[in-house]
């Protein structure tokens, strides 16, 4: 009996091994991502297309939850030596990934080692710039990038006697338009998603003003925040004033405020261009339009260009050299114009290459869907400067929480804009020093 079960066990082990070698014909590439629902199905579709296009590699996308969960999951897996090949990391995790030199395999190096063609210049500069080091080398593969835009209620504009085809250009316009909309019976002028990203990071970049020293952190870990400067103070002070009059309404963190636009409470709404599909699906009772983010026209250099948010694909070390050839091929595959154009058109994320943008244009996509090119036009407004290239701060997920938290103090009237901004800088710098200490 004992002998028999032993034989059985041996046989099954042998069978498993045989099956293992069978499957090994295609090397598996693990790809952890944070794209739920429709987006997740789209990611799977891209992987399926890649797998069908060749026989050597099989990319296996695995949904790992939110951005934070995906990133922490991959990091924990790395500590346990179970890391995936590719992990999708949101923009605020960039500095953490970059600092982990022993763990991350830079994309430009991977492409060179795998002897695959790779031209960093074919990517949109505002997108790739976010993920390059100071020498211009691309460290990760941009994947889903977006930029904040202004959505507005055309029907409400018409009712208030405004031109439905002219969204506000400047913050002064936002104020006067809102007053008219309030007079026409609407409850709130505008609301915004992702406060730190839209009203601070992108706001400052659009006005060509720094967010922190050392080129927004690109130049070194010893960077400090400078968001308590006069322009940001002016903007937050205005927003606090507007909140009292109903011109602005605080509707929560992240994209929690979206329903306030859908139910026509707020007539203007600033959030990610990646939210286009959501707005389109939910704006049932009114026509909506897409405009550029407003700016203060008396500030020199405004409007500069807006910066991106979203996520990129990072490669983790610790696998066989052979595997990374497959990763490189997959990256080249997803950068193809037809794949990128399709991804861009379905999701509202930016096309990451110039070719994909040109292809979408040639296909007449922007003519059929007015407003969808606003994001691309906005990031390409001017060549990015040191202030508008992006940002690279350690512990930035926490710093964003600090920004949200302190500004909530302003909206609830507990803090003056000056106190809140000073406190953001102080607490943010503490977190930056902590990061510098751990990763220096």
């Amino acid at each position, binding site marked *: 009996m004992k002998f028999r079960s032993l034989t059985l066990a041996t046989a099954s082990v042998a069978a498993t091994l045989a099956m293992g070698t069978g499957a090994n014909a295609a090397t598996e590439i693990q790809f952890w991502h944070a794209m739920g629902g429709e987006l997740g199905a789209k990611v799977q579709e891209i992987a399926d297309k890649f797998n069908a296009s060749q026989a050597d590699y099989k990319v296996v996308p695995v949904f790992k939850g939110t951005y*934070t969960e995906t990133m*922490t999951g991959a*990091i924990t897996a*790395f*500590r346990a030596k179970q890391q995936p090949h590719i992990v999708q990391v949101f923009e605020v995790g960039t500095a*953490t990934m970059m*600092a*982990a030199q*022993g*763990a991350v395999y830079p994309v430009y190096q991977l492409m060179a080692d795998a002897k695959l063609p790779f031209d960093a210049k074919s990517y949109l500069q505002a997108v790739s710039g976010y993920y390059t080091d100071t020498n211009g080398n691309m460290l990760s593969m941009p994947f889903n990038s977006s930029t904040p835009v202004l959505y507005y209620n055309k029907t409400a504009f018409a009712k208030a006697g405004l031109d439905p085809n002219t969204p506000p250009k400047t913050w002064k316009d936002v104020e006067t338009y809102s007053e008219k909309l309030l007079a026409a019976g609407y409850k709130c002028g505008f609301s915004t998603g992702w406060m730190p990203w839209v009203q601070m990071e992108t706001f400052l970049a659009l006005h060509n003003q720094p967010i922190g020293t050392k080129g927004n952190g690109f130049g070194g870990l010893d960077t400090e925040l400078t968001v308590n400067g006069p322009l940001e103070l002016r903007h937050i002070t205005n927003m606090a004033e507007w909140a009292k009059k109903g011109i602005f309404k*605080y*509707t*929560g*963190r992240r994209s*929690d*405020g979206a*329903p*306030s636009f859908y*139910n026509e*409470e707020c007539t203007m709404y600033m959030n990610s261009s990646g939210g286009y599909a959501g707005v389109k699906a939910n704006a049932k009772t009114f026509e909506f339009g897409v405009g550029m983010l407003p700016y203060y026209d008396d500030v020199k250099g405004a409007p500069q260009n807006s910066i991106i948010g979203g996520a990129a694909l990072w490669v983790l070390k610790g696998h066989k050299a052979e595997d990374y050839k497959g990763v490189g091929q997959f990256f080249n595959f997803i950068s193809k114009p037809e794949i990128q154009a399709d991804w861009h058109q379905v999701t509202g994320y930016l096309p990451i290459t110039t070719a994909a943008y040109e292809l979408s244009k040639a296909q007449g996509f922007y003519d059929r869907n007015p407003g969808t090119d606003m994001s691309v036009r906005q990031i390409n407004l001017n060549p990015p400067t040191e202030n508008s290239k992006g940002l690279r701060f350690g*512990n930035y*997920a*926490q710093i964003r*929480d600090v920004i*949200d*938290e*302190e500004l*909530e*103090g302003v*909206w*609830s009237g*507990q*803090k003056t804009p000056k106190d809140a901004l000073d406190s953001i800088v102080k607490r943010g710098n503490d*977190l930056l020093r*902590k990061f510098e*200490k*751990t*990763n220096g």
Partner: protein
Amino acid sequence: MHQSSPFNHRLLPYLLVLPQIAVTLAFFIWPALNAVWLSTRQEDAFGLSSEFVGLEHYIAIFHDGTYTRALVNTAVFSTGVTVVSLALALLLAVMADRVVRGAMVYKTLLIWPYAVAPAVAGVIWWLAFNPSIGVVAYFINILGYDWNHLIKARDAMMLVIFAAAWKQISYNFLFFLAGLQAIPRSLIEAAALDGASPFRRFWTVIFPLLSPTTFFLLVVNIIYAFFDTFALIHATTAGGPAGSTETLVLKVFMDGFVGLDLGGSSAQSVVLMVMVMALTVVQFRFVERKVQY
């Protein structure tokens, strides 16, 4: 007095408790020791570098204003949750104890919330009280109060207290009901014959006899409020606005899993562990004296 045991083997008792000890060691003691060890080290997220820093993380905790704030929030929150959930559960249990017809339906409905996952409960409350689209928020507005837990700290705290208490009421209700049914009818009837009003009967007979149950629930509820409410707060307010609902356990998560500061977050969880241990000891030493078994 003669004591005899059917188990004569000396090792058998040890063998019988072994699984329990093994589980405790593997799932409780080992992780706890790990947390203590991690709390003395400074590591980067990927574990590529690790350095011994002694008590630095603990010193940092007590110099951090947001930690003190979380401590105050936790005190307000756990007191609120415990009082609200115990009081309402007791009220419901006393009522249910008197119901004769349809008692099963009534009890089942009251136990239901316990089966709802904390994160789901959080989302339900988030939706109901959402200032833009929430049903409850809408009615509160009609009553003349401008409900907005996104900017009003007090609204937010009330929201998380009620959401957390709501989930715990079912559990408390079950224990109170069982406790009530264990009270001999003869005692209550005797009090009634002596002319005690229902109110007086409750306070002088029933409530004291329920005290072991109440004490047990007090301990359990405080531990619940300290540790188990994380998912719920995370889904309803995420600690906002301006950190006014950030409790200690939420902060451990935020610093450890969002901020990837494993050392600092471990130090916080060790402090939290010591705090709950101390609280439990205090409860057993001082509150239990008032309990009549």
